[in-house]
């Protein structure tokens, strides 16, 4: 029930925001903030209350909620949460709160509609992480898409319409292919079980395939949808445009959460529903992951647009996810979950910084920046933290994640792992370039120096910094929480 409440409050909050903000814009913002905070506190409070009784280490479902929706098709409104979902939900609402905060002053027109879209996107994302009915999953998958489209297309930068289109059509294509795969799975399952039609994830887990070809095709349907979102290299094309044109909160959600839904989908659905089929393409997926690491890093190094640069680093970081997932090692999968969290936080933070810079300097071109440390030492220092996180400095979360992934993948394919490690060197190149071009060197701006962080910006950056340092120093709680799921996954796929 708490899960329904959590999603419901965002949906209702979004609608009220829209209605209220027409008269009172400030009220609209407050409602949005309160709605997200409540949605964040619900799972946290629930966890605090039952933490002692729960054994998260086993692969058990913490919450399970199911009601019929469209019984004629075997569609039910089935939400459930395990350790993995719990972690993702926490990330969702943490970044959700920050995204409301960081668009506090940035959005001046149509405030209500903006927060409506923001909250509905968050609701869709939260839904994706807890939906255990494949149809419902598809439904949420699409729910997060349309408001995100509006976020980019209305409040984005100069080239926003093109970017929004590209984003929508790429993901829509993937989504529809996934729908086909879901339907195929649904009919195959019904044939095997004497016409018992159901979209339920737990029922569909028992589907067996008489031949590998069918299984592989259906698996590819799912996988394409997920790797478009992830993104994997030949399908990453929408990402730089969408990320760089979106408003700050949009980039934060895109990089921090939307990409994670792709990774989550692979872990939750592709690996569990199609163990053999995914094993059979594992090497190719790892190869593409490594290509993504290197290619993304090289392209990131070549960018002059700050947001585009950060966008390409996402391509590179998500390559690690692909590499880790398809290694099928417990340790690598632990790393993948860590990577999802830390990348969400660190890249999200970089996008927020880019947004703050843009608010002050009205440009994203790093050639027009430089020497900003003198004017903004606080922002510079914080940027340093996240740049270091991005290049994988020990004590910061990303290091743990990438280290675990590389360690797990090494057993499977030493060659690919070595190339991927070389990618880390490239990540140092592009990360340090951000620091050098933006904060060091000759002061470029001739007009009055930009102001340093405001209190609101301090809150945003401080919470992100605390999170990334905590994850770097003490990742054990996260690893414990997902342990059960990951261990079982690794066992069944070996």
């Amino acid at each position, binding site marked *: 029930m708490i899960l329904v409440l959590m999603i419901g409050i965002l949906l209702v909050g979004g609608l009220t925001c829209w209605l209220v903000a027409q008269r009172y814009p400030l009220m609209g913002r407050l409602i949005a903030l309160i709605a997200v905070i409540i949605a964040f506190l619900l799972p946290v409070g629930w966890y605090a209350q039952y933490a002692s009784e729960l054994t998260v280490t086993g692969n058990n479902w913490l919450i399970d909620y199911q009601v019929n929706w*469209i019984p*004629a098709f075997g569609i039910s409104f089935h939400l459930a949460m395990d350790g993995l979902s719990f972690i993702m939900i926490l990330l969702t609402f943490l970044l959700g709160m920050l995204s409301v905060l960081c668009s506090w002053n940035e959005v001046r027109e149509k405030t209500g509609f903006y927060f409506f879209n923001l909250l509905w996107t968050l609701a869709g994302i939260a839904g994706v992480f807890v939906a255990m009915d494949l149809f419902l999953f*598809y*439904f949420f998958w*699409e*729910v997060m898409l*349309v408001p995100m*489209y*509006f976020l980019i*297309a*209305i409040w984005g930068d100069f080239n*926003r*319409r093109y970017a929004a*289109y590209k984003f*929508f*059509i790429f993901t*829509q*294509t993937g989504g*529809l*292919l996934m*729908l*086909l795969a879901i*339907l*195929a799975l*649904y*009919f195959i399952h019904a044939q095997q079980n004497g016409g018992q039609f159901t979209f339920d994830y737990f029922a569909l887990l028992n589907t067996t395939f008489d031949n590998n070809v069918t299984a592989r095709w259906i698996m590819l349907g799912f996988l394409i949808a997920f790797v478009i979102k992830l993104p994997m290299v030949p399908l990453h094309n929408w990402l730089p445009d969408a990320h760089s044109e979106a408003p700050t909160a949009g980039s934060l959600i895109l990089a921090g959460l939307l990409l994670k839904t792709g990774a989550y989908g692979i872990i939750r659905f592709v690996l569990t529903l199609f163990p053999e089929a995914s094993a059979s393409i594992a090497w190719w997926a790892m190869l593409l992951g490594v290509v993504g690491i290197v290619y993304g890093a090289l392209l990131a190094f070549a960018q002059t647009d700050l947001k585009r640069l950060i966008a390409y680093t996402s391509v590179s970081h998500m390559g690690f996810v692909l590499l880790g997932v398809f290694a099928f090692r417990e340790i690598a999968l632990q790393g993948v979950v860590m990577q999802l969290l830390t990348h969400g936080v660190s890249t999200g933070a970089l996008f927020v910084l880019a947004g703050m810079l843009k608010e002050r300097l009205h440009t994203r071109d790093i050639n027009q920046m430089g020497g900003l440390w003198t004017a903004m030492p606080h922002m510079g220092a914080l940027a340093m933290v996240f740049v270091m996180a991005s290049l994988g400095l020990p004590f910061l979360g990303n290091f743990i994640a990438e280290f675990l992934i590389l360690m797990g993948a090494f057993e499977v394919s030493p060659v690919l792992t070595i190339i991927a490690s070389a990618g880390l060197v490239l990540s140092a190149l592009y990360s340090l370039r951000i620091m050098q071009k933006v904060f060091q060197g000759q002061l470029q701006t001739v007009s009055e120096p930009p102001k340093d962080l405001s209190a609101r910006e301090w809150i945003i950056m401080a919470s992100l910094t605390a999170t990334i340092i905590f994850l770097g120093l003490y990742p054990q709680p996260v690893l414990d929480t997902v342990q059960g799921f990951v261990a079982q996954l690794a066992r069944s796929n070996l």
Partner: protein
Amino acid sequence: MNAIVISAVLGVVMMFCGVFTNSKPAVRFVAIIGLLGLLIANVLDMGGYHFFNVNVNGMLAFDIFGLLFNTIAFAATWIYFLLSGRDMERVGVNLAEYFALIFFVLCGIAIVSAFNSLLMLFLGIEIISIPLYILTGSDKRNLKSNEAALKYFLMGAFSTGIMLMGITLLYGAKGSFNMEVIRSGTTTLTPMLAAGLLLLLFAMSFKVSAVPFHFWTPDAYDGAPTVFTSFMATIVKVAGFIAFIRLFEGCFGEVHKQWQLLAAIITAATLFIGNITAVFQQSVKRMLSYSSIAQAGFMLFALVAMNETAKEGLIFYAAAYSLATIGIFAVLLKMKDYTFEGFNGLAKRQPVLAATNTIFLLSLAGIPATAGFWAKFYMLSAAINNGNVMWLVIVGVLCAAVSVYYYFRVIQAMYFKDGEPQEIETSRGFKGLLIVIAAVVVLLGIFPHWLINQLYSFFYL
């Protein structure tokens, strides 16, 4: 039977109405009330109250699907009357005659949803077509309208000829017009049967504007007065599909496997050409014509799959597609500029129109939580269930992704572009009705079974 008789009588009544009164609101009122009566009579027919017991000698057979479709077609027409009835006055002076012609079309629709003999099919198609030729050309002083009417008439007559030839060949092979006779014993396609099947397939493809027989559609739809395009592109078009699937299931259901591939190729071509061409249109009206071809491609899935899901899906598709398209046309009718630029900045001046229009467009694009999504869902699941044509399903899905582009162009124009919004006069009732339709579209998107269950519950009260 209720629907056939009453709609024909109503047509005659409307003609006399034009003689006795010159008051336009009165004529419109009579038409709206008459259609409501027709709708109720048809629903009662579903419930087992047959007003007329005519011995049709097996020429007609009334089944659930036919009557259900009639109900949806009549209800959609009723909404169309309410939304756009006023706009018919702008076309010309013969308001009563336009309504009369539409009632005759409805009579034809009631026949094609119930025919059991190929002669009745021919009759029904002709009763639908001839009033449409007139409606297309009803803007007498407009050259484009005349051209469209002539083109439509020539193409329509030509395809009717092909259809008759096909019927003749079937008669030659089987010695009967009755579909059951034709169906029974048809396990292989003899050359004569095959020729008949092909001719019928082509003729029906003409009527529903499937590629490569679609060339008349954009011109006819573009040239016709917009208010009638709305009717032609929605209710009439889906009626064609009901006839199509009824004919092919009735006559060639047993040899489905042998013509399935051909139907699949036509479907794929329709999807492809319809969607790709729609992308390049500059006028919203023309875009909607091509979109109607593209949507026809999805409805053809029912023909390819031909199972229970597909038939139920076709009914649902008819409702979803008609509602959304009638809504968009109703807004389009109020505009003076039909290009995409004409929609610029509509959201600022007319938020209600823009918001409802967005829902209709999302529904046509098949985004979840709208009726259009379930329509596509039905069709895709029918085809996947059939299992023989997976490639077609993938083509369909990719084309659906393309369709997002041109539907969203309108949304972008309305919301993201600034322009000199046109002066649009709308009444409170008009907006209210649009909101109701949009609400129905969303409700159907969340509880798709509600409508069909409601309608089923009328059977045999």
